């Protein structure tokens, strides 16, 4: 494993750093669930597109940067380092775009890819339902065939970005089947179709990052099916495999957080405290391990050696580690943690309370730790499938 950057990567890093330094907004944008925030985030996506940085992971033939995963990782590191905004079309660029490239017809590629690339069309993901979380195949949203249309009835939940997406890529049940993984269809649904109702789903920290989406007799053309009818599960697995690329800059963020924590400890006069030093040292070691781990993973991916199940290891690792960082931050701030107010002395990027909650949610979203452990045990280690 080569930890040194190639001259090409170093050159790319310098260019990216320069571009981001010039164009990335100073300070945080307004939240996405405000009109001015949404507009600001869309403007940023347009800037990225014009700069050629919107979709480094896409093949050149589809308008992307054609960059290998190592180069993508370099960009992600620089992106996080400069504190650039949330990517509101990450589901389009990262998940459904590659899915269309792999499984869509030529007509579908022409129809959807340009809008995704420029982020003029924003996408949300309609997978989870109230009765189908970890057990996604238990999904119930029905799609009844009526000539050249499907009539869709049901409900999706935990739909990221649902409030302002133009399109949803959804899994729907098109045929009753004895085996629940069969009879699922991958369907693209325009969010302005009559019969769709989007309701904000407020989380315990007050943020509304998610929605519930209700479908009542929503008519969707059959030509919006990706792949074959009833063959959607296979394509959904491809989509989930593209999620691997989404945490490439994470270790950089984590290292920044450890630095912030050290600054907090100093300001509180706790840098001489034995307990604090042990805790910070432990987090620092984890940050180094995380960085090395990501370098190793990305190198393997670039060589085509990665089967995809390693992503479970990575996710399990950081989702167990991050809450500890915020626990330590709370310990350091002690009962002075002015969590619900923007106290300058205790300022933590992204607000400590929100970061704390989000870290707690990490063991649940994008596959719970229990599911990840099952994947690691069964797919990576070859242990027998559970009873």
């Amino acid at each position, binding site marked *: 494993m080569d930890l040194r950057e190639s001259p090409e990567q170093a050159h790319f890093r310098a260019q990216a750093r320069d571009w981001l330094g010039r164009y990335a907004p100073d300070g945080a944008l307004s939240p996405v669930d405000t009109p001015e925030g949404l507009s600001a985030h869309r403007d940023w996506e347009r800037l990225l597109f014009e700069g050629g940085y919107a979709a480094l992971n896409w093949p050149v033939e589809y308008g992307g940067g054609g960059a290998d995963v190592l180069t993508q990782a370099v960009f992600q590191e620089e992106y996080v380092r400069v504190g650039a905004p949330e990517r509101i079309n990450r589901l389009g660029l990262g998940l459904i775009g590659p899915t269309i490239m792999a499984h869509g017809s030529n007509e579908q590629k022409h129809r959807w890819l340009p809008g995704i690339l420029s982020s003029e069309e924003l996408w949300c993901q309609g997978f*989870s339902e109230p*009765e*189908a*979380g*970890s*057990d996604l195949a*238990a999904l119930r949203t029905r799609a009844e065939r009526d000539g050249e249309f499907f009539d869709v009835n049901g409900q999706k939940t*935990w739909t990221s970005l649902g409030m302002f997406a133009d399109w949803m890529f959804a899994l729907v049940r098109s045929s009753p089947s004895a085996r629940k993984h069969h009879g699922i269809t991958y369907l693209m649904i325009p969010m302005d179709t009559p019969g769709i109702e989007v309701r904000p*789903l*407020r*989380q*315990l920290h*007050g943020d509304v990052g998610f929605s519930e989406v209700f479908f009542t007799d929503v008519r969707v053309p059959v030509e919006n099916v990706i792949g074959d009818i009833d063959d959607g599960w296979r394509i959904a697995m491809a989509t989930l495999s593209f999620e691997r690329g989404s945490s490439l800059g994470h270790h950089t963020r984590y290292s920044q957080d450890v630095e912030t924590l050290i600054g907090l400890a100093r300001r509180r006069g706790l840098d001489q405290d034995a*307990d604090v030093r042990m805790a910070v040292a432990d987090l620092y070691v984890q940050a180094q391990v995380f960085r090395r781990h990501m370098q190793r993973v990305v190198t393997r991916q670039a060589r085509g050696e990665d089967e995809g199940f390693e992503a479970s290891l990575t996710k399990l690792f950081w989702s167990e580690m991050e*809450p500890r960082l915020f*626990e330590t931050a*709370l*310990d350091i701030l*002690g*009962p*002075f*943690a*002015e*969590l*619900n*107010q923007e106290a300058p002395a205790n300022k933590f990027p992204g607000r400590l*309370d929100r970061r704390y909650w989000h870290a*707690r*949610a990490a*063991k*649940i*979203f994008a596959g*719970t*730790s*229990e599911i990840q*452990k099952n994947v690691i045990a069964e797919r990576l280690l070859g242990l027998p499938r559970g009873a």
Partner: protein
Amino acid sequence: MNEILDETVQRLFSDHGAARDADRETVGEELWARLADLEMTSVGVAEADGGAGGTSSDAAVIVRAAARHAAPIPIAETLLMATMLGVRTRAPSAPWTVAVRPGELPRLHRTASGPALSGRAARVPWVRTVEWVAVVADDGDGQVVVSVPAQDCPIECTDVNLAGEPRDTLLFDHLVLSDDQVVGGVELSKRALAAAATARAVQISGVLEEVLEATVRYANEREQFGGPLGRFQAVQQLVAELAAEVAAARAAADAAVVALDALDRNDGWRAAAAAKVRTGRAATVGARVAHQVHGAMGFSQEHGLHRLTRRLWSWREECGAEAYWGAELGRAVLSAGGSRLWPSLTD
């Protein structure tokens, strides 16, 4: 007797729907009024002094029930903290809070016009709700408790804890009082801190019991992969871990409540310290397990699990976190020497 009290007070809280409606502004007032009707707010003050009488154990029953239902009232501060400072006779059924924390205390100066209070009291619970604030202060010779009407307390900065409970910082600037508002005593701040730690330990253990019940219910009701979550060994083991923490927390908190009557003893504070450390740890594990089992549902505002877990996360930090009490206990045990360890545990 405690069982009847427990049943009565639990029914009061669940009938009221405190946990469900906790975001309504008037919930606290309504609950306090109901408790006062049943004379529960004056538990801990002798009948001869206009109170309902009762023991620390009775007080703990009420505080625990309130915590289980996430009741937004200063009942722990009144019944378990203020009582231990002997100040409540001036207002036996009123809501009280106590201002004390490890470190700097406000100062009391004797002046020509009377005793005057100056200095900062940080993150005092429920100041905007209570009628009286008992402030532990330093008067140069030792420590005193000063009973200040809440409306006379100057708030420098309003704030809340992670559970949204008010935690305001007071800044006294030469507040002149009358002599009868000042009471002296020995090692008052240590006494007040131990009482405060015990109060939070009782609250934490109460919430944990509710969290365990909710988690078991969820594991039995939520179905994925063709059956209830609770049939998976991984889930069972998580919940078993939680149950063990709940049991340990309850034992530690109960021991601290019993020890409240012996706070004047040299080592009277140790049970409080141990309880705060143990319940702090249990709170961390308990909240983690509860959220993991409840999955995404438990993260929504609507579900309400967060009303319990936010309190766990807040209360374990307050009135001395694990590090503070752990250090105190460690120091005491080490300085007494190895031969004293067993007797100190069993005496």
